[in-house]
């Protein structure tokens, strides 16, 4: 099941060579792969706080980027998709966990049994997700920076490469956006 990263790299070549279907395939498969990857890592780690799915993703991403980078625009898009996928996975989990706590009934999903430490509490994650969605409406670039750094585990420099902007810009965007996010989470609306 699922494509391995080599398959995806191969599709990237097709994509570069103008195969429009390849692009969709990459996204679809990559999402599935990310989900699977996250699941297998989460499952094999029975609940300690050493889990860093983002670090793992980062490795995979860097390999992809270095191997066969599509053109600049696509590359940024590509990484966003991956970061989005990871965000989706983690937020889904967090929401389910919260639902369970409120007594909405258990969802039989193996990922739910495990705390992904380093990714904050379910509360925090869900609140951040909401705030990040709000931010995206106000400031798409800042939101992209946050998403890449938090969910794809990119450093400032890597984010800069992915977005094709200067690292100092990334740094500024991050500092401002993360302050804003902290404020949103701190004012009690999401807590």
């Amino acid at each position, binding site marked *: 099941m699922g494509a*391995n990263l080599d398959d995806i790299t191969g599709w990237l070549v097709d994509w570069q060579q103008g195969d429009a279907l390849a692009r969709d395939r990459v996204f679809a498969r990559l999402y599935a792969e990310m989900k699977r990857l996250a699941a297998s890592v989460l499952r094999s*780690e029975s609940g300690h*706080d050493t*889990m860093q799915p983002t670090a793992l993703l980062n490795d995979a991403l860097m390999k992809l980027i270095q191997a066969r980078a599509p053109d600049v625009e696509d590359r940024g898009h590509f990484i966003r998709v991956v970061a989005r996928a990871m965000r989706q996975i983690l937020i889904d989990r967090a929401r389910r966990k919260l639902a369970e706590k409120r007594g909405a009934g258990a969802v039989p999903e193996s990922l739910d049994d495990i705390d992904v430490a380093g990714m*904050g509490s379910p509360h*925090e994650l869900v609140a951040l997700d909401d705030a990040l969605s709000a931010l995206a409406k*106000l400031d798409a670039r800042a939101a992209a920076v946050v998403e890449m750094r938090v969910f794809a585990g990119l450093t*400032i420099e890597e984010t800069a490469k992915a977005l094709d902007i200067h690292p100092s810009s990334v740094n500024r965007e991050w500092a401002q956006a993360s*302050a804003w996010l902290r404020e949103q989470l701190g004012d009690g609306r999401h807590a």
Partner: protein
Amino acid sequence: MAATPDAARYARLKDLHFELEALPEAQRTPRLREIEATEPEIGAVLRQRFAGSIRALDILDRAEHRERDAATPQLPHYRIVRELGRGGMGRVWLAERELDGARQLVALKQIALAGWSDEDERRFQRERRILATLDHPNIAALVDGGRDAAGAPYLATAYVDGQRLDRWCDDRVAPRRERVRLIRDLAAAIAYAHRKLVVHRDLKPANILVSADGVPKLLDFGIARLLDEDAITATGPSQMTLRYAAPEQVHGDRGGGVGVDVYSLGVLLYELLAGNSPYGKVDGTAALIRAILDAEPVAPTRVAGPVDADLDAICLKALRKRPEDRYPNADAMLADLDRWLAGDPVDARRGERGYRLRAFLARHWLAVFATVAVVAGALAFVAFHVATLDRQLAETERERDKAKAVASYFQELFASANPGATRDSDLTARELLSRSVARLEQGDTTTMGDDARASMFHAAGRIMAHQGLADEAARMFDRALDLWLALPEVPENDVADAYNERARLLFGRGEYQESLRLMQTALARREAMGDVASWQLGGLLQQTSVTLRALGRNAEATATLERSVAILAQQLPDSRSNYATALGNLGTFMVIEGRVEEGHAKLKEALEQLGQLKPERTPAVLALTRNFAMSLRELARFEEADRAYSALLARQRAFYGEHHIENARTMHSFAQTRLVERRLDEAEQLLDGATAIEVALGNEDDPRLLAYQADRARIRIAQQRYQAAVDLLAPVLVQRERGVFSERSFADAERAALAYAQCRLAPSPELAARIREAVVAMQKSPPLPRMLVPQAEGWARDCAQS
């Protein structure tokens, strides 16, 4: 703060934020005041931001930590030269350490703040402690440790100027022998660490540097674990390199014993021999995990010849999926690598797959194969051994899951014991057992089902029973029974076994009636299953017969035993050890009952059957040989009997040492033979010897001593020292009256002897009548030696005539 963040407010906030950030610190405060004057709400927010009093948010903080980790550490006495590498845990720098004018190159290691937690801190401190205990030529030594200005701990180890293991070999196109030698040196380092109770858990080429002159050094004990530590310190696969990880690590088994390192050594050896991974070309984490769990590697020297079956065997043995199938520890692997280097046959090729498990279980279960003597003057039965070794092993291998659980439990138990023993010589098997039982009872073996847990209680019970811890053993068997009987599908074989062993403990305490009741429970369960011919049934019947015999229900005992022998005979050769034991007992029963020829033949066959078993069941052979010698005496083949006894005593002394209860039993039986032969001095010496052993063992109160005393009295009678005989016999009979367990026939014979001795001192018709009465009883139920019966008949005539 705004209740509804709108675009204009956000844009204004962002603009001002950027503006303030670009200002030098000194100009920031006046500018902030300006903003606060005109836009108080936004000004307040910005003031908070730049005062650093912003809300901590774990998710965002971690992203920032990743950034900070890119910086080099600032430490007094250290000058950072360059980065050596980075991994999941953190980064390693080459640094020059200068202290009191001495300069040294070190590898400086710090943990990534992004992943920092209290546990990481503990782990890091532990690595420091672990390294401080390790002093080995193939392990990079600890130089220093402490904290940097920011409070983050660091470790400095001696810098090894070398190349990664794999590259070193590739660059030199190192010959096979050289590669094996490198792994051998590493195995020595790992074995050393294991003895210090340290499991490395992260062996990989990146952690092994080889110097130009070919000395490999082990680096990075970052995720090493102390064997006697709790699992809290263990870490999962996110911190190790999957490619060299053992299946149990991939499973997320938090403990991971020494087998983990053995496996990794196997992967390293494989890669150096074959030139590729044991899993071939696998891409993707999931595929690799699958391969680690399931793929059976091709023999490495078949990948890159020339083929060397010994080396393949060593490598593949280290790579077995189940830890208990691998080398039990790095020392064992080291020994095999040394054998290969010396050109000797390697251990890895001994026997078939599963050899290790068999050998391991055999070592412990053989111990259970004990002989139980029916307390009676002259004879000891080779009693049942319930843990029917051969079939038990076959059964164990059939029930793979349980076998695995039990074996890995003991594996771990003993693996952790061995290094411990060197450090703490007081660590006894008993303590180990109680430690393991505590673990079992706490139930920290969470991966185990109730069935497997019950098996472990059962196995622990057996070993405890063997250790003489009867009460604890009984508790273990009861726990096992509780668990098994609660299962939806009750494992009848195991339940019957457990009842059997529980009964055996009761037998040992002399609670024959209760013992018999449990036996019958087990028999009824077997019958309900429709079992009429299994080896388990045969074993059960065998034990039941011994219990019946102890209760004096001799006819039933013999019949039951005959049924047992018939069943076990059908199950040959698997039932051989059980069959031999049952047959030996039957032969003994027959000799006692006067079917001497028949019994002798059975004993002979039993010995032949036992002789075919490898390894030899020495205690059983010795006990059976005694009964065989006795049968020779009963056949009046005295010369053969004497030779058999003498040889037996010599073997026993060699096997058991001088002061052993079995020696006393044989001496007594031999003494009775000498008495029948009227070689009185020799008989007396043997009795002296037997008594001395009992006294040395603190058995003064044992009923066996009554039988010795009675035989001493018979010697006195033969010496015509009748008063001495009376003095010896009278107290024996008082004890017998009190019901101290014995075969009734012995008391009859003793009564006859006492009356005769008294008659010789002062004849009376009353005494003659008493002898005749005893003789009638003896004829009905003859004692051993049977020659006592005609002798007593003679006494009756003598006394009547006098």
